């Protein structure tokens, strides 16, 4: 549902639903810490980031119309058929075998934290570097760049020389007038 919406906000809503459902999948797998992180980081931070960008871009009805023109049925019928085939395959595989109760083996957050700061400490620091680089890169790319020319190229070289010459003569004349007085 996310990739077939025309309007970005609708797609973001479906994306939030998708993140919640995958968080439930993590919870049923016995990973409650990861499920909480999924909701907090993905559905909390990344969705809000997307919504801010959509708000700043102020995409209106023309953009939705444009996307609607691009997504004519002959364009998306084949991928949709493929995805439906995958879905039907999964449903057949799910219902062919006898159902058994999902065994839940919870991996505790304590074990996770001990392993994270024990043997993966280098990777944690590298992730910190990556996030720092991401922050600096986003701040540098996102700021509005003005086209700043060099000061010799702003008015042309000859004009610059002329202004300096006139300034020199003016100073000379003021000195001469001071001496005369």
């Amino acid at each position, binding site marked *: 549902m996310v990739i077939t919406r025309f309007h970005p906000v609708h797609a973001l809503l479906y994306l939030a639903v998708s993140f919640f459902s995958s968080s439930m999948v993590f919870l049923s797998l016995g990973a409650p810490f*990861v499920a909480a992180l999924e909701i907090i980081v993905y559905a909390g*931070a990344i969705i809000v980031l997307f919504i801010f960008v959509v708000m700043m*871009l102020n995409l209106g009805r023309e*953009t939705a119309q444009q996307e609607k023109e691009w997504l004519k049925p002959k364009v998306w019928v084949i991928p949709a058929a493929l*995805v439906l085939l995958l879905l039907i395959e999964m449903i057949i595989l*799910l219902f062919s075998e006898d159902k058994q109760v999902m065994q839940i083996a919870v*991996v505790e957050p304590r074990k*996770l934290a001990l392993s994270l700061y024990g043997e993966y400490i280098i990777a944690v620091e590298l992730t910190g570097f990556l996030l720092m680089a*991401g922050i600096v890169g986003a701040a540098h790319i996102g700021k*509005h760049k003005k086209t700043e020319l060099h000061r010799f190229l702003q008015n042309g070289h000859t004009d610059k020389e002329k202004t300096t010459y006139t300034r020199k003569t003016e100073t000379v004349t003021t000195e001469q007038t001071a001496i005369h007085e």
Partner: protein
Amino acid sequence: MNSAQMVLMVAAVLFALGLVGVLTRKNVIFMLISVEIMLNAAGMAFVAAGAKWQQPDGQIMFLFILAMAAAEVSVGLALVLQIYHQHKTMDVDRLRELRD
């Protein structure tokens, strides 16, 4: 079929959906959203494998994928803002300045 294999299949379907989204949409924002879906599917596969072997390594890999996705989406959205301010369009087919 145990639960880990089912979750792996769900992750595969999600990854396929994200790939279809990247390949078909022309809007840059939708392509970023589809990339997020694909990263989420990869993390789900890691967590399923970690739950199968009862080890916390899969969840640690999911944490790293999470941090990488956050950095990627911040830089990507900054690029989207810059592209929109310079070209006034979101269509990737019109952004052909780098084509020789």
